[in-house]
């Protein structure tokens, strides 16, 4: 056996355990789901091949359309808001002081808490009459505060606000890591050149933070598309279908209505959507992400 072949085999044998896990628990189910999307199946009766019918159904299904747009709505607002909040927090807490560490921990805390528990608490905070949020709003003179999760207009913003609160701390830590990676001498040079604080941020911090920003943007987009827990607990997709998002609708079709074929077809479309957005992002990154040599 040639030496290189043997080396390669040794390397593969190290990869094998992990790959088997991936194969059994991820790859095969994903391929099976893709196959299922051309079937009609209620998990018990024999599967029936229906060709593209599940995909045609999607085009006619008003709930699917609503869920699709709601997912874009949620993502379109959650991602930029989370990034802005996380960045502001990171900039404010990027100091070596002891007290700052306490604040970092406080802001990271929502990420550690279970989404389910947090969503239950927020559901109470949003209570139209007795919830602390509306009591506060009334106190400062808002006579007719939003009815939050009970209102078709405000249910989605309510979920978005809660989601931003929940994940901003996590991305703050990412940004902090990115900020610490920027060499200090660049700021010294900028100071000597007479740059203002804003100029330092705009021309030193921001460009060198773009790799982190890219990572945060990609992860956050994927996580936002996948939103489920908050919806499941806080609104159940309601009132009506106001917060019906794709993953929740897929869940309903699969596990409540036993419509596994249709649910798989929607999951396939959903997968393509995320894949498309991610590829688009990677293409775009060459234009705006700066890597320090």
């Amino acid at each position, binding site marked *: 056996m040639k030496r290189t072949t043997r080396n390669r085999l040794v390397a593969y044998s190290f990869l094998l355990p992990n790959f088997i896990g991936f194969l059994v628990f991820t790859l095969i189910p994903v391929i099976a789901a893709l196959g299922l999307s051309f079937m009609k199946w*209620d*998990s*018990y*009766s024999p599967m029936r091949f229906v060709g593209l019918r599940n995909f045609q*159904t999607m085009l*006619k*299904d*008003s709930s699917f359309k609503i869920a699709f747009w709601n997912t874009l709505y949620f993502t379109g607002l959650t991602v930029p808001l989370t990034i802005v909040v996380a960045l502001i927090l990171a900039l404010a807490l990027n100091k070596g002081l002891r007290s700052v560490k306490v604040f970092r921990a406080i802001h990271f805390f929502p990420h550690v808490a279970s989404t389910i528990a947090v969503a*239950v608490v927020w*559901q*109470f905070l*949003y*209570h*139209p*009459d*007795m*919830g602390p949020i509306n009591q506060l709003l009334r106190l400062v003179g808002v006579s007719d505060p939003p*009815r939050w*999760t*009970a*209102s*078709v207009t405000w249910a989605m913003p309510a979920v978005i606000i809660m989601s931003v609160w929940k994940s901003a701390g996590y991305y703050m830590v990412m940004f902090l890591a990115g900020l610490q990676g920027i060499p200090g001498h660049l700021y010294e040079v900028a100071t000597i050149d007479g740059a203002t604080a804003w100029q330092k941020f705009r021309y030193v911090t921001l460009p060198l933070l773009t790799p982190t920003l890219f990572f945060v943007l990609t992860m956050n987009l994927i996580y936002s598309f996948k939103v489920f827990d908050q919806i499941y607990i806080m609104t159940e*997709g*309601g*009132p*009506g*279908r*106001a917060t019906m998002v794709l993953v929740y609708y897929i869940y*309903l079709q699969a*596990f*409540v*209505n*036993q419509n596994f074929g249709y649910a798989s077809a929607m999951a396939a479309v959903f997968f393509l959507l995320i894949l498309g957005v991610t590829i688009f992002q990677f293409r775009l990154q060459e234009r705006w992400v700066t890597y320090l040599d």
Partner: protein
Amino acid sequence: MRKYGLGLFAAVLLIAFVAAPVVQAQVTLKFACWDYELNQYDKTLIEEFERRNPDIKVEVYDMPASEYPDKMLIMLAGGEDVDVFYAKDPTMYGGLVLRQQIRPLDDLIARDSVDLSGYGGNLENVRIDGKIYGLPYRADFWILFYNKDLFDRFGVPYPTNDMTWPEFRETAKLLTSGEGAEKTYGTYIHTWASTYFVYGLQKHMGDLVEGPYEMLRDGLELAWQIQMVDKSAADYATNKAMGAHYRGLFEQGNIGMLYMGTWYMQALLHDAAQGLHNVRWGIVRLPQWEGLPHATIGNVTPVVINAKTKHLEEAWRLVKFLSGPEGASVLAENVIVPGYVDESVFETFAGVEGFPTDNMEALLTETVYMEWPAHPLSGLLGQMVEEEIVLAMTGNKSIDDAIADMEARREEIILLNQ
């Protein structure tokens, strides 16, 4: 010590030899139900069955009530050999029949000439395309519970069996007063969709799969008036956000009337025995619409046999036991309305400590409509009807629009699921 050890060994051997033939002859049946340990009455039944049938051992799969239909479905899909189980409601039952997962029992009923008269009208609700796939084990229906202390405090006469919904609304107003901890509400309307459509089904206009949704209008108007105009009940959004539960609220003693299923009788007695409340409660028939014959809404729980069972004879014996007079008497002792009803059931109820005996007629039913019929689209339509009811009851949509949209969305669902 060694001597004793040897003796013990001999004794064990002896027992093993003696017991062996019995053990070998025993058939193990697998039985699934919900809240077995929590509720105890199924446990009483199964233990009694095992005592009377020493050749059968029953292995129980115990699941939480809320997860039962889903888990059962997954177990059956996975080929789990459960022999006997409950179909929790007509929707689950209909699905099982549709997928041919359970076995028609007509041949066995005929062979053993089982007396079906005790099931009364419940039998019609387990008959699908002329065949009986399960025998009714429980048969709950909606009645009105009321708090006698509260009625006495406000000097309002107790409700009667012929109360109408407009009278219900007026009575609720009389019982509403106070603020904060002293606040009393005339009624509480629970956050299930069924709580909002029971009134509609009482219109005798058909079921929610095929009947016109126009039937829901008066009931939704009534609920809206009670919650938003009279404010004699907390509104839907408040209850939902608080995760309100009828059990705790009624037992706090500041709710005058509560329309709910007969399953609540058992819980009320149980909670009182635990010292959780001291509400003096009474029951009357579900209020009705003026000029229409009385009807209430119900839910039948049939006990069924897996089509793939390998122990049909033993399974059938368990089904007959659970759904027959023996099962009924154990359920009655626990104040649960069995599918098999004879006079002894009500006598047993009346004999239970704390049961209000002043109005046993409340439990007599003429017409019982199912919440959802055993129909393949019940699940999808149920989701849709609930969404529209919530929109109307949270003021996001007018009742007119909600009803019109229900009709339109039903068309869509039927079209998409042809």
